[in-house]
């Protein structure tokens, strides 16, 4: 029998769909810390984040038969978490007035350079820690997914449900906005 550690999320999800509910514990083990870290960037209180992450797991279990196992499980669960955190922020009226997102209207060239991004990852993480609250939520989330959660562009596109080209252009703009915010704090 294959050890659980080597089995992919998608296979585990498929086995849960087929009735092995106990395997859901593995999913919780794999994602509890990641989703809590993700939530911490949206909400300030740990208890609130824990409640929402627990809700995310419950929802994930309830909806798992709707998951297409040929797709990536992590994108799917992050999408559920994204919705849960956004809903919570909306409920508490902490969501700033968002500007209309014109980037989703037309196509953009996808420019993904993992080597260059690897070189700048430490800088961006450091800047993010200090200037996170100074940039718009759209930019904040996409940078978190890219530089803290190490997601690929196509996974981010699935989570945020936006075109791939929009992910690319939004990351470029977010990095510029972050740089500007950081320079304002450290002239």
């Amino acid at each position, binding site marked *: 029998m294959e050890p659980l550690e080597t089995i992919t999320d998608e296979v585990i999800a498929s086995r849960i769909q087929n009735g092995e509910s106990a395997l*859901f514990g593995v999913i919780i083990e794999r994602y509890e810390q990641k989703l809590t870290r993700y939530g911490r960037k949206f909400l300030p209180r740990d*208890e609130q984040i824990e*409640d929402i992450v627990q809700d995310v797991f419950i929802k994930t279990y309830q909806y798992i038969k709707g998951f297409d196992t040929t797709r990536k499980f992590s994108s799917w669960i992050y999408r559920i978490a994204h919705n849960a955190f956004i809903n919570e922020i909306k409920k508490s009226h902490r969501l700033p007035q968002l500007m209309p997102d014109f980037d989703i*209207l037309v196509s953009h060239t996808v420019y993904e350079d993992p080597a260059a991004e690897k070189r700048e990852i430490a800088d961006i993480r450091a800047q993010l820690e200090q200037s996170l609250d100074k940039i718009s939520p759209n930019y904040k989330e996409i940078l978190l997914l890219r530089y803290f959660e190490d997601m690929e562009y196509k996974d981010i596109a699935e989570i945020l449900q*936006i075109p791939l080209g929009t992910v690319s252009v939004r990351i470029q703009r977010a990095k510029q906005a972050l740089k500007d915010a950081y320079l304002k704090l450290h002239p």
Partner: protein
Amino acid sequence: MTTDPLTTMQQRVLAEIESHQVSMRPKFYFVLHTITLVILATIILLLSISFSTYILFSIRASHHTPLLFMGGRGLLLFFTFFPWGVLFFDMVCIVAFQHILQKFRLGYKNPLLYTLAIVLVCMLGLVFVIDHVRIEDQILRHGHQTNMPLLFGAYEGAHAPTNPDYGVCPCIVKAITPDFVIMVQHMPYGRPRDISVLLPPGIATSTIHVGDKLFVVGKFRNGVLYANDQQAWDPESDGDTDSTAGTSTTP
């Protein structure tokens, strides 16, 4: 949410699953959800197509197309009579359809303007095909034959001739006097109404003959339509003007 500090999140969630407080939604639920969305999207799309075909029908049936070629006043009148309310509901349907489409991968994977353009092109294609086969006219004819009120009178309203008080008259020449041209207003389903029309200066009455079909635009005062502009028109082609008729003038 109740939290027990003595247990981990994993234990709490698994306990809820084991005690059947939380259960998986059956596959059927997701299939039904998708089917419902598809049906809803189809209904909205059909509604939108109906609204669009109604707009085309209404322009055609009211014989207002010649107004587009009659200068600023003609354009102003055309837009005054345009069914803006129907267009508004049509827009609402398109936005709702686009919103539903965004729930599917196909919808959000592509830029919004591209999917919108594809939707609009397909929809307008269908609208022109439907308009070409004159379904709306058949509905109207059926309504008149059976005395059925069609869609709260919307179809009759579209086909009702414009009141000459607004200065617009798709008419047929009935008689020519030294002072006026007596015209009968084109009313396919109503009682024809006689209107006295004073032609613009420079138009010789000798160029006009009894039986000519003229689309006249002007000002209606004291029972007389003082024409500013006129065009030959053909009611049979539902509003298409005949540019070779040679009676078009712009003072």
